């Protein structure tokens, strides 16, 4: 087993761990804002590690660039989504069920 594989495996394992943290956070944190916090940060870090690991394994620069792009865009998207949801939650403080009247 090559060094690349080992490093990649390690990275993937770490990434998966972050995912685990994110999910647990989503489930265990008490309110919406802290859940947001857990989710976006942990998950995107996890995705980052995963992406690097996968990029190492992909063995082609083109794909590696593509994977990097995936991660970068995911970061941007997640931050905007998180921001928008946070604002929404702050504005409405509405509770489920029921759409706003």
């Amino acid at each position, binding site marked *: 087993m090559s060094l690349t594989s080992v490093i990649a495996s390690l990275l993937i394992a770490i990434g998966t761990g972050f995912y685990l943290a994110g999910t647990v956070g989503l489930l265990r944190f008490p309110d919406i804002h802290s859940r947001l916090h857990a989710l976006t940060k942990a998950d995107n870090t996890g995705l980052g590690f995963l992406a690097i690991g996968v990029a190492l394994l992909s063995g082609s620069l083109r794909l590696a660039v593509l994977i990097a792009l995936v991660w970068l865009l995911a970061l*941007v*998207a997640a931050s905007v989504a998180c921001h*928008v949801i946070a604002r929404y939650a702050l504005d409405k403080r509405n509770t489920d*069920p029921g759409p*706003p009247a």
Partner: protein
Amino acid sequence: MTLLDGLLALLLLLLAGRCVTAASLLQAIVAFIVLGLLLALSWVRLEAPDLALAEAAIGAGLLGVLLLGTWRRLPAGSGEQETPWPWQGSAQAIAALGCVALAVVLALALHETTLGPAAAGTAALAQLEAAGVDQPVTAVLLNFRAYDTLLEMGVLLMTLIGTLMLRRPLQDGALAAPATPLPQSLARLFLPPILLSGLYLVWAGAYSPGGAFQGGAVLAGAGVMLALTGLLRGSTRDDLPLRCLLVLGAALFTLSGVLLIPLTGHFMAYPDDLVTPLMVLIEFSLAISIALSLMMLFTGTPGLCRTRP
């Protein structure tokens, strides 16, 4: 990997059950959207990356947004606690029993039929050489069974006309621009990669997973994003160029099918030396029509225009 498949299937079933039994409508919608994500993974597992792409663009892009947006438009509390009607309990029980029985029979049938010849499929793979494209699915869609695809464009056009008929009067305004500038920045940042990947998918359809529909759906997603963030707005004025583009795919498809009859002797057949360029041309025109149709199905307006600050 079998374990993965099993888990996927299990989650699919859980979500489907949630979707129909959830007390809150939003819960049902969210369950459905997540089910779409899992379905995309299932397509991957089932060697259907084309469909994974389609599901990604449709489920996450168009359909999810429409579902959530519709939920927001409903009056408060609608679809939540439905007033029970007489015999509801027993009727539900009967329906449930019937559906369980159906599921068992269906599963057995599907299990039983996973072996056997596929004359049409074998023929399609055998004649791939002559089809002008390397990707079997694209070959079936645009050449072997192009007629279905053409009629499908008719479906798209007719639902679009129907949706436009539901538009309310005097609403030429854009979506109120979001309160923060962030979404607009996001849209501006994402627009080029979305457009690029959409066009790439159309192009790639000839030899790898992708195609007119996947590409068109991604392009439509770009439009949805622009409209959501207020960069693009619906307009009540419909204009000729837009209408031309909406029917471009179907018209080009039909006309090439009809006009080439003297050369080929069959409707919707293509001469050997022209087949590849024609396929690409038709694929792009279809993608444009699909993208615009889906986008306007979203906005529900006959026209679109840019919002100038």
